[in-house]
């Protein structure tokens, strides 16, 4: 063929291909004019903040230009725009100092998830059937306004309820102002991973109902009761940074770490000594340690820092807490208790912490108070290498509900949540994350009008009459006040790092729009035009109240805050109330009680927070589904962990399908033989077993919440999620178990190749 002919042919076929593609509607998309400036191929980094868990880490987002299919003014088309490509930690943020955990980094996939709700939806099928059709924003908002006006005309505004997930800062402020204007009760908060028991203990002991922070980088000895503080608990990134320093950051000085728990967590796997104790006796063990520390200190005539009372040690010296007595109940050897106490006295600063399943027993409050007392005895409250509280600046209202009457779960448990006439749901999935005994689904079926701001159709939003999809966090104005993980007050603030992909609207602006349409007191309660304006007003207030900040020009300061991704208040350093004699009050041990009798249900059932999915809120992300679990290396499913000896007795082998039954339900899952779990304990990760959560997360694994009873933590009213007993039987077939360690060819042949 001549070169000329070849070129001709090429032109011809090219033209045909173009013509053919014109017939496909996908190729007929209009092309919008870019809305922003960028240099092609050059990455920019923009500050944002992570909203995957309540730790509140700062992020830097890598933005590069790309072509995306978007919706603008109701029309679908193509646009060149800045797209988020990667999430890393913000090096200037005092909580996470440039680091970000696996889940935080995978948060990128929330924005680009193929199953995001892309337009407002109205329910067309039965409640919970999942049949919706798309409607316009105006139509959806008018419908809400009509409903609210109708409720208001009947003077039933006190039955309008707003349930959120963990929401802090100005978003919470805005929701509560909206409700106040309507004459409705304050918003309820539903956060299954919160530690209400620890908050209560800290309120009683330190006058502050907040989660603690730790100075591990300067600790020489860490003893932890049940908290997965390097994996999922509290502020895991901040704690991991401190842990690394404790281990190897000080040449010649490697801190010791002891972990007490019944099932070895990812954190426990890093311990120098890993110790199982009887479930629910963690507090007693802490008191036993406090007793031995006191005896050791008395012998050396030492006093904990900040203690001036001569009789400070008196209540702890009784024989009840002697190592031999404590051994009888906890199952931990007296000699070990004495040795740890000696080591802690020898290697200050030593610090103790408690969390997770240890607080989810019926006597959780006792355990939390006991660990606080142990810290007092060690002299590590508010001292370097110890436990402290992140200060909230008095200047800005840290809008966070901490009181019991705004806790959705305790209201459900006490039967206080009924008869909502209109229900708003934001970032909460209570149908998935509550035990069946609370009948959450039934309650929602009975609720006449439900509006959800969810970006996904999940177990809860599937009940909604209207779904008004929020922007993704990367598309939104964000602000946050981290509760723990730093020694100075910090406010994180970020503007949207990319433009919205779909026909979504930011929740705060939808609420403002509704308020505006309703008029009257509600409109007056929210005088701002945009959420940005509201944020600016709150930061202006903050700037005014900081005498040290001489910057007169607020606009300049505002730009500076946005550029850094927040505001650190170095002047607002941590402080603690003075120690008083009453702080050595010894909490009284009360034995834990369990749901289900011991004969019929011989095993303790311990659900645990999944390293990949947390409580299940990120189970829809493919990166998280395919992330091998740190200990079992399992992916894409749920499993039940059994001790090797127990498994041998019951003739259960790795991967066998087994049936776990509690007084409240049954689950069938494959077994994982785990050498790091007590003989009488069975553990299962939370987060899977979704009925409705996109293509990657639905109908996969099992949800341990489904078989939990409704035991409460005494004096707190929180759900005691580790207080259910179960039994176990074989189904007689293999389950769906996908392990990264060992390929298919090795499975069942007792080999492990990699």
């Amino acid at each position: 063929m001549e070169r000329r002919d070849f070129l001709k042919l090429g032109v011809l076929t090219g033209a045909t291909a173009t013509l053919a593609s014109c017939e496909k509607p996908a190729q007929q998309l209009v092309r919008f004019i870019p809305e922003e400036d960028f240099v092609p191929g050059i990455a920019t980094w923009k500050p944002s903040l992570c909203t995957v868990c309540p730790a509140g880490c700062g992020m830097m987002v890598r933005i590069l230009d790309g072509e995306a299919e978007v919706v603008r003014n109701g029309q679908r088309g193509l646009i060149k725009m800045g797209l988020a490509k990667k999430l890393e930690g913000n090096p200037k943020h005092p909580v996470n100092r440039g680091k970000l955990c696996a889940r935080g980094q995978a948060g990128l996939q929330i924005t680009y998830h193929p199953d995001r709700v892309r337009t407002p939806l109205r329910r067309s099928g039965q409640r919970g059937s999942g049949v919706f059709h798309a409607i316009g924003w105006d139509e959806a908002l008018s419908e809400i306004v009509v409903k609210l006006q109708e409720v208001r005309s009947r003077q039933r505004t006190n039955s309008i309820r707003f349930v959120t997930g963990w929401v802090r800062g100005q978003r919470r402020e805005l929701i509560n102002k909206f409700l106040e204007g309507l004459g409705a009760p304050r918003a309820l908060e539903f956060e299954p991973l919160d530690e209400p028991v620890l908050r209560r203990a800290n309120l009683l002991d330190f006058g502050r109902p907040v989660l603690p922070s730790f100075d591990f980088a300067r600790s020489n000895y860490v003893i932890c009761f049940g908290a997965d503080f390097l994996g999922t608990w509290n502020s895991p990134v901040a704690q991991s940074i401190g842990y690394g320093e404790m281990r190897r950051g000080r040449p010649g000085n490697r801190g010791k770490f002891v972990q007490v728990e019944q099932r070895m967590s990812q954190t426990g796997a890093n311990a120098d000594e890993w110790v199982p104790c009887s479930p629910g006796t963690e507090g007693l063990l802490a008191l036993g340690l406090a007793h031995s520390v006191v005896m050791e200190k008395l012998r050396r005539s030492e006093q904990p820092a900040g203690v001036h009372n001569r009789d400070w040690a008196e209540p702890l010296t009784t024989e009840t807490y002697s190592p031999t007595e404590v051994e009888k109940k906890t199952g931990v050897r007296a000699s070990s208790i004495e040795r740890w106490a000696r080591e802690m006295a020898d290697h200050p600063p030593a610090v103790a912490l408690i969390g997770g399943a240890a607080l989810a027993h019926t006597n959780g409050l006792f355990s939390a108070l006991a660990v606080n007392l142990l810290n007092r005895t060690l002299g590590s409250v508010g001292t370097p290498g110890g436990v402290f509280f992140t200060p909230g600046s008095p200047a800005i209202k840290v809008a966070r509900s901490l009181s019991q009457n705004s806790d959705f779960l305790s209201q459900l448990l006490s039967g206080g949540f009924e008869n909502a006439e209109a229900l708003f749901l934001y970032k909460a999935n209570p149908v998935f994350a509550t035990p069946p005994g609370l009948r959450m689904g039934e309650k929602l079926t009975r609720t006449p009008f439900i509006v959800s701001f969810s970006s996904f159709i999940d177990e809860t939003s599937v009940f909604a009459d209207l779904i008004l999809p929020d922007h993704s966090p990367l598309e939104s104005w964000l602000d946050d006040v981290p509760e723990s993980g730093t020694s100075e007050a910090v406010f994180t603030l970020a503007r949207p790092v990319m433009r919205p992909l779909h026909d979504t609207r930011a929740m705060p602006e939808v609420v403002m729009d509704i308020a505006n349409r309703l008029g009257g007191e509600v409109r007056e309660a929210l005088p701002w035009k945009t959420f940005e304006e509201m944020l600016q007003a709150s930061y202006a207030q903050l700037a005014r109240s900081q005498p040290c900040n001489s910057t007169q020009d607020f606009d300049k300061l505002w730009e500076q805050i946005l550029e850094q991704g927040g505001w650190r208040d170095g002047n607002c350093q941590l402080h603690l109330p003075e120690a008083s004699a009453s702080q050595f009050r010894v909490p009284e041990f009360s034995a834990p009680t369990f749901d289900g009798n011991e004969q019929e249900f011989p095993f303790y059932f311990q659900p645990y927070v999944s390293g990949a999915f947390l409580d299940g809120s990120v189970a829809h992300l493919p990166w998280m589904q395919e992330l091998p679990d740190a200990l079992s290396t399992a992916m894409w499913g749920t499993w039940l962990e059994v001790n090797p000896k127990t498994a041998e007795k019951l003739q259960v082998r790795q991967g066998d399908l087994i049936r776990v039954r509690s007084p409240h339900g049954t689950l069938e899952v494959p077994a994982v033989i785990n050498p790091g779990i007590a003989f009488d304990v069975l553990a299962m990760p939370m987060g899977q077993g979704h009925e409705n959560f996109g293509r990657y997360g639905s109908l996969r694994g099992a949800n341990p919440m489904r078989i939990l009873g409704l035991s409460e933590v005494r004096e707190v009213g929180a759900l005691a999620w580790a207080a259910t007993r179960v039994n176990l039987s074989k189904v007689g077939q293999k389950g769906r178990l996908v392990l990264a360690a060992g390929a298919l060819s090795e499975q069942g042949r007792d080999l492990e190749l990699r």
Partner: protein
Amino acid sequence: MSHRWGMAVDLDRCTGCSACVVACQAENNIPTVGEEAARRGRTMHWIRIERYYEGEFPNLRVKFQPVLCQQCDNAPCEPVCPTYASYHTAEGLNGQVYNRCIGTRYCANACPYTVRTFNFFNPVWDKPLDLQLNPDVSIRQVGMMEKCTFCVQRIKATEIQAEAEGRELTEGEPTPACVQSCAPKAITFGDLNDPESEVSRLARSRRGTKLLDELGTQPKITYLQRDSWDDKNS
């Protein structure tokens, strides 16, 4: 002086949190394969956390060990490649030229660390998940072998930047995604040709070991073994 990139992984700092695994996936456009392919051992991760149990309940110790391409000086994967897709770069990396790869999988057979992954199918990103892809890293198609590159695109970017500014690279400037994400600072990356660099210093540690050293592969990753606590060392 040319660079010779190496890594040190302190197992006493590593907590097994898997932040590096996701960082690598995001940086290098590593696809997810789904449950069935994962069950067949076909996940594409370039870095994995290995977990070893020592002892029996309750006296149990665990070691987490992140395993990625060891960038061997004497790499078994390189000489077996019939198309020279696996080759040794000037900076000492075990490179992989995707365009040359014809999928014989000889390199994966030869690698004792099982860190090479093979594309049994074309990777799929359900739209609009494709928008997350990093344009600096090419997408590998069916029939191609792929592996850790020490984030060569990030190294190159810093080298180009330093050259444009007419200066030498500074310590810690090139950081692979796994190193960047590591909260307890278990992974250190740097130039092994510079005896003063942090990575060279750690490579000389008394806790330093090489993975499967006896095979003579001369890995450029040093693993610093977990220490144990006794009364004297603190």
